């Protein structure tokens, strides 16, 4: 069951900062559903995943499913 993290209306870099905190507190394999409508989120998520070793899927334009993999 994915935990929801609603960052709609928040500007960059807040969605990524909040996601980083959430992932830090999560167990390995835990999923987080990030809701974000900031235009920088999609680009920054792939950079974030590459840098932190986590995985994510784009569900829709403002829905991203992140899995703690590291």
């Amino acid at each position, binding site marked *: 069951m994915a935990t929801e993290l609603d960052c709609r209306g928040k500007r960059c870099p807040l969605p990524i*900062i909040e996601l980083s905190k959430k992932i830090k507190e999560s167990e390995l394999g835990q999923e987080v559903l990030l809701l974000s409508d900031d235009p920088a989120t999609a*680009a920054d998520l792939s950079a974030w995943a590459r840098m932190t070793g986590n995985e994510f899927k784009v569900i829709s334009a403002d829905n991203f499913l992140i899995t703690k993999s590291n």
Partner: protein
Amino acid sequence: MITAGKYEGQHPLHPKARQILLDAFDQGWADPTQISSQGRQAEALLVQARESIAKSLGLKADEIELWGEPELISPIAIWGAPGFGVSPFIYGATERSEIIGMRGKSKQSFEISVDIDGAIDLELLTQTLTLQPNSIVAIQSANIETGVIQNLKTISKAVVAQNAHLHIDATASGARFVKPAYWSTLHFDARSWNGPSGVGVFALKNGARWSNPLPHTKPTRAPNSFSIPLALAAASALEYWIADESANSARLKSLIERVRNHVKQTISDVDIAGNAESTLPNIISLSFLNVSSEQLVGALEIEGFSVASGSACVASALEPSHVLKAMGLLTHGNMRINLNHDVQDGEITKLLALLPGIISKLREN
């Protein structure tokens, strides 16, 4: 104390070029097309300035035109290329927005992606060129945000093999630009060599096909409505810049290397754009994970450093830098350093001593 320089050029005008500019304004330059002694003098100085600019850039005097609105040079160079509008238009994903914007004026356009180091995908470019002969290709020599240099030697070979038009945006490289064997049109901006803003250089290779797309009744390649004092100052600034460069280029390169190595060693989770071998010697772009660029730029400003950023939260636009995005680099927490010849080594030492502390403090918030 402004040290790390400001992004996109506006370094202060060279003091000697500034003097030439003021003298030229004071003497009230006459219209060089009029038959008066003042007009003739202005004309003679202008001829000299053009020759000097062409020589400094490794071009022939009859290959260049001076423009008073530099930002228009690339769009007009592309617009005047043979068949533009109907012919395929091919451009790199990290080109400046006014070049990417030309896709809206073309029936077919192709964007060539870049890898994580910012280099154009040569295979995709060659493939696209083979399928789309007689295209118009626009590639930058280097990127103003990241300093990434494109391999123009190889790109120009691929372009000439398919008989395409090659426009090169050299506004970031300026006098550091190294011409490949084949090119059609070039674009320079005097700001890149600490000249005044409001002067650009358009170059058309002798023998290349191009026609002025602007309305005109007499054969002309440019509007020629640029400011003569600015053009004279641009020419002298270029001469001074070249003299300063030979004394400083190795020093700037080693300062940027120091920034690159120090940041890598002392700060975690940072994206440094491009690799040391293929970036300009004076530019570096750093993106720090979980840092707000607005706060970063502000914190550095308090310490006397003026840096710029490609992050959306600093730029007036909502969209983050399309350059960082195309490279797949982090777009937030970004800062860019663009060093001028007069930067002191001690300023970089101070910046590097402060940066790790500033980043960790901002990350705690």
